Structures are given as structure tokens and as C-alpha cells.
């Protein structure tokens, strides 16, 4: 919804969400700092700062990366997704404090520029045990930085959703960089199985969540539609679709959402123009198909966002015959009016 990004402010949900983020971050830092001072009192301020912010950022990163698959497994996690970008920006801010202090602490006041020093001090790029782990952290930080500055919807529209989404998929590359940064860095000094275990548990949980979510979606994608009649395929019985809701069908690798609205069925492309949210998992609200991710809306009969918004998705033809729903998987141009099928 092109003009919406300037209009949406800090509503109640966002305030609650941000309140929890702040409470958790402050508790983490307070606990980390006080326990370190209490039980390991020779610690220096710089090291406490570097370590508390970095480990908090890694915790946040795991939370951020869990939200996607969790919402796909259970829609009721959706409220966590709505404001996820604030989590991302927070995570970036803590990694930036860590990274910048790291550069100051380990590279400043020397005979070389600190940024050059980051890459040219330790030059064992060919060795795994001696690898310059700080460079890995640097590239992860750059990715988080690019994601943080483009997190506003302004950039989503200016970069186009596909470029934006691709950029944001780099978070997985950044995650791997961070894991290697820690495994080839501080863990080789600490040599404490607890740290290895923590990181392993974190990565394993993320992998399992993503696999489970992926398996669930594959089930939809693998559905076979055999019965064909002049271009239409039989997809389901009409009463399987609840009112104001949709079912998603994947035909020829395109996901299509078939919505039931006011005794008619309408079919539109399942992919939201905002960030690719699954429109078929949304609901009709005020006569509009409403995306479950951030609430972009589309009219069922033409796939267009109601004015003043300009988003459009493809539409499809549906037929109902003796309670059987038939769908033609050939898309009409985005925003093309289709009258729907009377029940």
C-alpha cells in the first residue's frame, strides 16, 4: 500500500512489542554485567561491553530467525511477525556496538588504519584454526547494516519487493558468518564445551524449525490435481472453504488462493505485493482480502488494493459445479476483474 508506510505510526501493538524488546534487552545486559562483576570481578569495562552486546545480539538473531517458521507452523505466532523489523534493528544496534568497540579495542592507536588493520593484521586466510575471525564478523555486520537501513517500507518500494526480499535473505549468510566468527574466534580461547553446546543448540533449533515449516508447505505444493476440463482443474469441494477464508492450491508451481466471500468464490495469486506474505492465510476484512503478515488489502474480484493504494495481484477464473470447485491456473494480468463463481 504505497502510501501506507508514512501513515502507519507507532500503534498500540508496536508499543507493546517494543516495550518487551526493551525489557528483555535491559534484563539481559543487566544480568550479564552484574554476574560478571560479581563472579569475575577482574573483568575490564571494554570486554564486558563487547561480550554482553555480542551475545545479546546472537540471542536476538535466533529469535528473529525463529519467527518466520513458527508463524508458518502456527498462525497464532503472527503477532510476533508484525513488528519483527524492530527486533532486527535492535539486533543490528547491539552488534554495531560490539563491532565498533571491537575495532576500537583491537585496532585503534596503532601504526595502521583500524579498518585496514581488521583485514591485514591476521593474514592467515588459508588456515582454519588461525583464520581472521574478525573479518567474518565485519561482513555479517555489513549485512545487518544494509538490512537495518532498508527495513523501512520506503526502501521496500524503492528497491522493489524482489530486490528487498533477496537482500533480506542474506540474513542466513550473515548467520553462518556469525557462527564461524564465534567458533573460530573466542571459543578457541575459552575452549568451553558449554559455549559450543549453546551455539549448537541454537543452530539445531533453527534448522529443525525451518525444516518443519518447509515440510508443511511442501505438502501443499505436492498436491496433485488430475481431473482436467478445458483448462480447469478440480481442486476441492466448495464447502471445504470457510466463509471469508481461503484455501491455497499450488498448480504448476504457482500458489493460488481461493477465497469465499458473500456466497461467491474468487481466486487470486497467493503472494502479497508487500513482502510476499501468503494471502490465502489471511481473511476477508471489510470486504477485502487482508494479508496476514502486515495487513495489506486486496479486493477479491479484481486483486487490486482499494484506493488510494495501487498494489495489484493476478486473478484467476474459478467455476463451481455440483459443489465441486474448478480452478483455471492461467493467470490474468494483475488487477484484472473476474466475476467469481456463484455458490
Amino acid at each position, binding site marked *: 500500500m504505497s502510501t501506507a508506510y508514512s501513515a*502507519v505510526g507507532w*500503534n*498500540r*501493538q*508496536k508499543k507493546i512489542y517494543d516495550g*518487551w524488546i526493551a525489557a*528483555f534487552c535491559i*534484563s539481559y*545486559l543487566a*544480568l*550479564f*554485567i552484574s*554476574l560478571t562483576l560479581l*563472579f*569475575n570481578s*577482574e*573483568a575490564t569495562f571494554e*570486554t564486558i561491553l563487547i*561480550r*554482553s552486546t555480542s*551475545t545479546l545480539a546472537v*540471542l536476538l538473531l535466533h*529469535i528473529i530467525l525463529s519467527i518466520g517458521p513458527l508463524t508458518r507452523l*502456527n*498462525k*497464532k*505466532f503472527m*503477532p*510476533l511477525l*508484525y513488528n519483527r523489523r524492530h527486533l532486527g534493528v535492535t539486533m543490528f544496534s547491539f552488534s554495531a556496538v560490539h563491532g565498533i568497540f571491537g575495532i576500537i*579495542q*583491537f*585496532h*585503534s*592507536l*596503532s*601504526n*595502521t588504519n583500524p579498518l585496514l*588493520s581488521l583485514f591485514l*593484521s*591476521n593474514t592467515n586466510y588459508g588456515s582454519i*584454526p*588461525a583464520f*581472521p575471525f574478525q573479518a567474518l564478523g565485519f561482513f555479517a555486520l555489513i549485512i545487518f547494516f544494509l538490512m537495518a537501513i532498508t527495513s523501512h517500507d520506503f526502501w521496500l518500494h524503492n528497491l522493489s519487493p524482489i530486490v528487498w526480499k533477496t537482500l533480506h535473505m542474506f540474513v542466513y549468510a550473515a548467520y553462518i558468518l556469525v557462527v564461524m566468527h564465534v567458533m*573460530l574466534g*573466542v571459543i*578457541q*580461547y575459552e*575452549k*568451553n*564445551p558449554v559455549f*559450543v553446546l*549453546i551455539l549448537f543448540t541454537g543452530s539445531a533449533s533453527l534448522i529443525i524449525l525451518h525444516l518443519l515449516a518447509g515440510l508443511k508447505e511442501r505438502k501443499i505444493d505436492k498436491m496433485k490435481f488430475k481431473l482436467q476440463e478445458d483448462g480447469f482443474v478440480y481442486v476441492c469441494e466448495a464447502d471445504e472453504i*470457510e466463509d*471469508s477464508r481461503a484455501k491455497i492450491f499450488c498448480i504448476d508451481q504457482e500458489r493460488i488462493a481461493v477465497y469465499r466471500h458473500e456466497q461467491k468464490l474468487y481466486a487470486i495469486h497467493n503472494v502479497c505485493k508487500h513482502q510476499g506474505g501468503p494471502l490465502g492465510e*489471511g481473511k476477508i*476484512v471489510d470486504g477485502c482480502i*487482508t494479508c*496476514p503478515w502486515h*495487513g495489506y488489502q486486496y479486493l477479491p474480484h479484481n486483486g487490486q488494493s482499494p484506493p488510494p493504494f495501487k498494489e495489484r495481484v493476478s486473478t484467476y477464473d474459478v467455476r463451481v459445479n455440483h459443489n465441486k470447485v474448478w480452478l483455471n491456473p492461467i493467470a490474468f494480468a494483475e488487477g484484472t476483474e473476474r466475476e467469481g463463481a456463484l455458490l
Partner: protein
Amino acid sequence: MNNNEFYIGWMPAAPKGYAKQVTIAIVVVAVLVLALASLVSMQQKKFSNSVFEYGQLTEVTGIYQQFPVPSIKVYTQQNNGSSFITMPLVGYGKHGAEGIIRSLEEERAVSLDQKQITLKGTLIYYDGKSLLQIDKHDKPLLSIAATLSSSHQPKTKELGTVDLIGEVLDPKCYFGVMKPGRGKPHRDCAIRCIAGGISPVFYVRQQNAGPLYYLLLDEKGNKLNDFVKNYVADPVRLTARAVQVDDWIVLYVDTKKGLQRTGGLSWFKENDELIYCKPE
């Protein structure tokens, strides 16, 4: 799922079913926050009680020695004043002291070697060793006394050839400025310090006693900062002629044999950087 339950972020409140799920998520995150902050902070290796008297200047009087490393030999009150400690000098930030000493010598047009001088600097100390940081902004040279008798010349003793496994350290950080001041996480910093002229120290762990510290020179007695730079913070093996020089042992490293890395990748246990002290 109840058909009427649908959530979009801009709704004023989430439906009940959603609110419950989110509450569960909040509790899980709260437990994670508490568990992780406690576990990670408590499991860190103990930091050493090394000291860098940051912001605090101390006046130190002693004999300046150019060899084996720029240092000041300070006599203490113990044993009728015959006890002393040799404190290597380091510069500001990641720099050695040679530049400052040279400019002080040029300024006064006098060589400081073997002269009794009073320096003002910042003390760094740990595990029986002390260093002094001098910074030209502090105007560190307070006085120079007359040349002293040769009784202050360092006492040396040949200890034979040794073959050791240990770690090349940047002593400024290790003995006080940073914690941890050695090992992989500190490696880049140590490389910068050694590239900046701080005299490297070799650190050897022993099985049943505290670590040993050695000064490093090449076989001809010259600085070898460039030679060791790429091996800093890794467990390495070296062969050297060991010579006791006052209260430090100097290793004249066989640079033709070179340094051999002995450590591999290890995440779980201290392994190779150990414990090897075999005089041949």
C-alpha cells in the same frame, strides 16, 4: 482454528487464541534471556588480576638499558637495595618505546643507555613482571643523572639450547591492558602491538607451576618483531639459545629453524599450547 480469530498487527488487540500463544512465546524468551545471560557470563574464563594503572602516572627512577629490550632497571629497598626489577618500556597505544626514547635522546643530545634516569609513566604489572608505558604527551623524562659505574651492567648466564612450545605474546596487553590479553580473540591486537615495536614475550605454560616468560631476540641479538608477527597468539615451537640477563631470560631464537605451529582447531579442551620445557 476459530474462523473469527484473525490477527493483523494494526488491530488494537490480538484475539484470545493469539494472545495466549504470544504469552507463551514471551515466557519462553524470558527464560532464554535469564538462562543465557547467567550461563554465558558465569562460564567465561576467569580474567587475570593484571593491572594497567590507566590515568595514573608514577615516577620511576632506575638505569635505562637499551639491551636486551628498552627497559628501566629499578632498585628496590629490599636486600639493602640490591634487589631490582627490570621493567620493559612500551609506548602509547600499540607502539613500542623506541620512538619516544630516540626523540628524548635527540632532544637532549645524549644517549640514555646505562644512565640513571627518572621517568614518569603508567605502570602495568602482573605475575611478578612489570612494564612502564611512557607517552610523549606526559613529558616522561624528568631527569638524567651522571653515568654510573659498571656494577649496574646486567649479569648474564648461558643456559644452553632450549626447545620450547609456547605463545608469542604482546606483553603490554598481557601484563595489564587487556583481558583476555592473549590467545585467538586478542590476536589482531597483539599483531598490531608487535608490528608497532613492542618487544614480544614468549609465554610457556608449565604442568604444575605458573607460566614462564621469556624475552625474544634473533640469534644475533636483534629485534625479531617482523619475524614473529605472523605467529603471534598461536601455539608454536621454537629452538633458541637461552641466556639469563638479570631477572629475565632472553631467547636467542634460531630463525633459520623458524617457528612451527603446533596447535590445530580445538573447541573443547586446552591441548597443544602446553607445557613443554625441555632443555636439550
